[in-house]
């Protein structure tokens, strides 16, 4: 399945603002909302995430058709990485200590910011590195 890359940048921009607001407010509830958004994006695909729907409803109709579509798998994987970090962050703010909440949220913010501002998918970049550390699996 293909997605409009500009929708990804749009969603990443909203994510950046939300995660920055989480850090400034130290609000676990706002982080929980973002975690739900990540979960929907990872589970159902980025087009069905709330930010993807916002883009399709309000932004895309005002733009020219996309010059190029993108594979949906990389951003979906990145949403799953974002979900993992926001769950760790939630555990931090609620149970472990604010330091863990701040650290995990800051890591997710970095990924969202790089995607929004530079079109760079950090989750995708670390994929092979992580995969290399795992047992050989189906390595040839």
């Amino acid at each position, binding site marked *: 399945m293909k997605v409009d890359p500009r929708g990804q940048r749009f969603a990443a921009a909203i994510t950046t603002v939300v*995660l*920055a607001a*989480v*850090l*400034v*407010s*130290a609000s676990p509830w706002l982080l929980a909302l973002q975690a739900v958004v990540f979960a929907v994006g990872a589970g159902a695909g980025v087009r069905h995430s709330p930010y993807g729907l916002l883009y399709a409803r309000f932004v895309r109709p005002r733009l020219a058709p996309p010059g190029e579509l*993108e*594979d949906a*798998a*990389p*951003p979906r*994987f*990145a949403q799953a990485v974002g979900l993992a970090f926001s769950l760790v962050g939630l555990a931090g703010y609620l149970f472990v200590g*604010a*330091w863990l*909440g*701040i*650290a995990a*949220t*800051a890591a997710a*913010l*970095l990924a969202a*910011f*790089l995607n929004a*501002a*530079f079109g*760079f*998918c950090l*989750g*995708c*970049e670390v*994929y*092979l*590195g992580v*995969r*290399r550390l795992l047992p*050989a*699996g*189906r*390595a*040839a």
Partner: protein
Amino acid sequence: MAPEQVAGGAAAAAVLVLGTVLALVLRRRSGRFRAARSRGVVSAADEAAEGLRLTAEDIGAPLGERATLLQFSTAFCQPCRATRRVLAEAGALVPGVAHVEIDAESHLGLVRRLGILRTPTVLVLDARGAISTRASGQPRKADVIAALGRAVQ
């Protein structure tokens, strides 16, 4: 403001500054070809032993007559599709060049041997399969053509 809010705000500011620096560095380095190693007098056996020379068996496809563009990709790689197109276009301009794309995940042994950390990584092999140069990140077409020019000499 509570202390965790002050610390959180500082962390957010730090991430935005560091992220910008990181992105600029990555953008500069991305897609640049660099020599596999200094070209000393190395015997063919040494090269093969160090994994610098690849065979058709290694890459699962015949080597190009004069050069091979070897691309490592994964399913979760944004620039891999655009890279595939750049390599196909550049390869078509130089006769005797093969373009081979490998799924990094199903060739982790080769990935580790070659020290590949990111996708896409592009290796330019000469006619014998020796690695002439490599680049990680999406390369520019002109750079690929220049790298091919060096490899087919």
